[in-house]
């Protein structure tokens, strides 16, 4: 069995493998992280607003 034939038999599997790896990455790593980033953005905005309100309250206080 020449080497050329072995190469030809593996080559169609490689793109399939890459596709599966990409799917796994997207499902396990990218998707949840994007969701978490969205949630963090909302939380950060809420905290920013809270901080602004508290700073305003502190500046309104006399003492």
């Amino acid at each position, binding site marked *: 069995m020449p080497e050329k034939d072995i190469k030809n038999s593996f080559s*169609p599997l490689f793109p399939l493998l890459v*596709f599966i790896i990409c799917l796994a990455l997207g499902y396990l*790593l990218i998707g949840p*992280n994007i969701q978490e*980033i969205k949630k963090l953005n909302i*939380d950060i905005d809420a905290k920013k607003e809270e901080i602004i309100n508290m*700073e305003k309250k502190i500046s309104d*206080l006399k*003492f």
Partner: protein
Amino acid sequence: MQDMGRPLIDEKDISNNFAQSNNIQSDSKAEITGLSQEKSPNLLNIFSVVILILFIAMSVFIFTVKLSKTSTYKNKQEEASRLETQLNSRELKDVDVQAQTLSDGLDIFKKLDTSRIVYNDLLNNLASLVPQGLKFSNLIIDEKFKAKLIGTANSDQEVAVFIDSVKQSPNYKSESLLSLRHSESGSSLETIGKEIRYELEFEVVSKNFTASSIEKNLKSPENNQ
């Protein structure tokens, strides 16, 4: 010279050579097609590798962004808790100071209110002692609660009854109750036609007319009776 009859190139050789050359051409064609068949999977593989690298890079980038956002959120949370503590302490201090100010103000107000003379009650009390026919024309009370009352009466008896009532009342001090002065000879008691003009001086017991004492009287109706 024997080979002169033999042709230089044999027909068989020509056909053999041609066949060989054809074989070579067919072999080279086969090799060329084999190469093109190998190249197309190689390109696909390279493309796949590039896609995989891009995906991995994207995953790393997103993970880094997530870490950065987490750090930012933690910082904001810490800042918020610090400000909350500061706000609470300041609010408490502010409320304490405001409560103290209010308490002081209330104390002053209570003091002022309790020491305030309720002139309405004083006048009502004085009016209750006045017999029929006796009139007031002027009443002056100074800051030491010394009162000077000027008025007219129809007879001496009316004035005498009034003086007696004032003497008996616990709201006025009898010692300084009256000083009579005729206008000509220094007394305040004189006759003008049928009316008698009188001028009385007495001291008001101020504590009996303060708001606190009235409040006490209101709270204990038995005392009033």
